[in-house]
């Protein structure tokens, strides 16, 4: 009878160890799966994250990133803490991005800088709300609208915020079509939004396309070496793409490799979202500040667009500025859609894609500069 009772107690041990926080997180995981599968809302990310949340929060399973020796811990320590996954994501991204529209109209690159202003304004806000500097920097980087960059910075300075920051960064990236249009409409008149820009793509030579990633990589890494892993991988991916001799590697980088890393990244993020460290007020604040950051990016981008419109005497549609974030290519699509709503003859996509590609470079630059300044101030990254 004793053997029967002890066997039975070992079978119910899992249920007995379930805390209310774990139960809520398991439910949250189910909600994420529902959103990903039934609503098709970023399924590539939400399904691995949702499943990771469930696995990580089931007691005694040993599948949270905190369980040493477990498979999630192995993925987390080897892929996230070493920065391997964000860097591999950037390799794939570089292989996917066509910088051609930006090279054909280089002045739109400057929008990529304006689209990062929200990062710094949010940093000020986060500091005022009482977050310590390392946390404030990690929260502000959500404004980069770029998941891998957010993970890269947060892993260096505030690992306890990693689940909230990465979820916020990826969620808001996909919510760009909902966040940006009201801000764009509020800051511009219909007449401004209806401005027609020169149609057609100004093409550049293949040599320029090949040399651009090489030159950009060298210059930006010399300026801000702290961002070298991200910028280096982004530019390597793009160099492989444009060289035209590495089709197999480009194919693997932009599809298989990116898909595998996305799966592991999602699982790790999910499995690091434990009830104890996720269910707190700080997480809500991180989400609010992340939203503010992306909204401010859009505001400053559109305002620079208005300034450029005045300087060029109406040749630039100010909506282009909203594409300066690195939510690629969502922001560019939003600009195109809003432009066509105001003027059905308008075709802003080519210009917006250029600004959006500039935003990709701008976000890494902004992150690299932040890391460099932190390092210069003696704030060392976590070991």
């Amino acid at each position, binding site marked *: 009878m004793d053997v029967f009772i002890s066997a039975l107690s070992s079978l119910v041990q899992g249920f007995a160890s379930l805390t209310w926080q774990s139960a809520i997180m398991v439910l949250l995981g189910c909600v994420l799966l529902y959103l990903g599968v039934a609503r098709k809302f970023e399924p590539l990310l939400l399904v691995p994250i949702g499943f990771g949340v469930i696995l990580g929060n089931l007691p005694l399973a040993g599948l949270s990133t905190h369980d040493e020796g477990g498979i999630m811990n192995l993925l987390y320590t080897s892929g996230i803490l070493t920065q391997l996954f964000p860097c591999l994501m950037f390799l794939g991204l570089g292989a996917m991005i066509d910088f051609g529209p*930006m*090279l054909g109209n*280089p*002045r739109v*690159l*400057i929008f*990529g*800088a304006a689209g*990062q*202003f929200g*990062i*710094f*304004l949010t*940093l*000020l806000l986060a*500091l*005022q709300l009482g977050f310590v*500097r390392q946390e*404030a*920097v990690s929260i502000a980087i959500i404004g980069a609208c770029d998941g891998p960059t957010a993970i890269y910075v947060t892993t260096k300075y505030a690992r306890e915020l990693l689940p909230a920051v990465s979820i916020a960064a990826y969620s808001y990236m996909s919510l760009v079509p909902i966040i940006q249009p009201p801000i764009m409409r509020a800051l511009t008149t219909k007449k401004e939004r209806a401005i027609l820009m020169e149609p057609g793509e100004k*093409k*550049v*030579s*293949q*040599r*320029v396309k090949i*040399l*651009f990633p090489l*030159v*950009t990589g060298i*210059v*930006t890494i010399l*300026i*801000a070496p702290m961002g070298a892993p991200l910028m280096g991988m982004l530019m390597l991916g793009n160099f492989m793409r444009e060289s035209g001799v590495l089709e197999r590697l480009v194919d693997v980088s932009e599809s298989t490799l990116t898909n595998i890393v996305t799966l592991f990244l999602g699982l790790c993020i999910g499995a690091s979202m434990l009830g104890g460290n996720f269910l707190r007020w700080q997480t809500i604040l991180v989400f609010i500040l992340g939203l503010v950051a992306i909204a401010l990016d859009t505001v400053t981008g559109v305002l620079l667009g208005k300034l450029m419109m005045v300087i060029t005497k109406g040749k630039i549609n100010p909506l282009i500025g909203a594409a300066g974030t690195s939510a690629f290519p969502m922001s560019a699509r939003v600009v195109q859609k809003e432009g066509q709503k105001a003027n059905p003859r308008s075709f802003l996509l080519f210009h917006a894609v250029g600004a959006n590609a*500039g935003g990709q*470079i*701008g976000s890494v*630059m*902004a992150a690299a*500069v*932040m890391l460099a*300044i932190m390092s210069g*101030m003696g704030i060392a990254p976590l070991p």
Partner: protein
Amino acid sequence: MKDWAFGLTMTVMGMGVTFITLYLLTLLIRLLIRLFPRKEEEESKG
């Protein structure tokens, strides 16, 4: 250093360097385009 000063330093330096770097890149792109203009065969290829 107070948090406010830290935030302002970060904002001014961060935005300043990002803007300058991207402006520098636009100049470099223009230079590359001038050094390696599109050839006729590339034009005909589309």
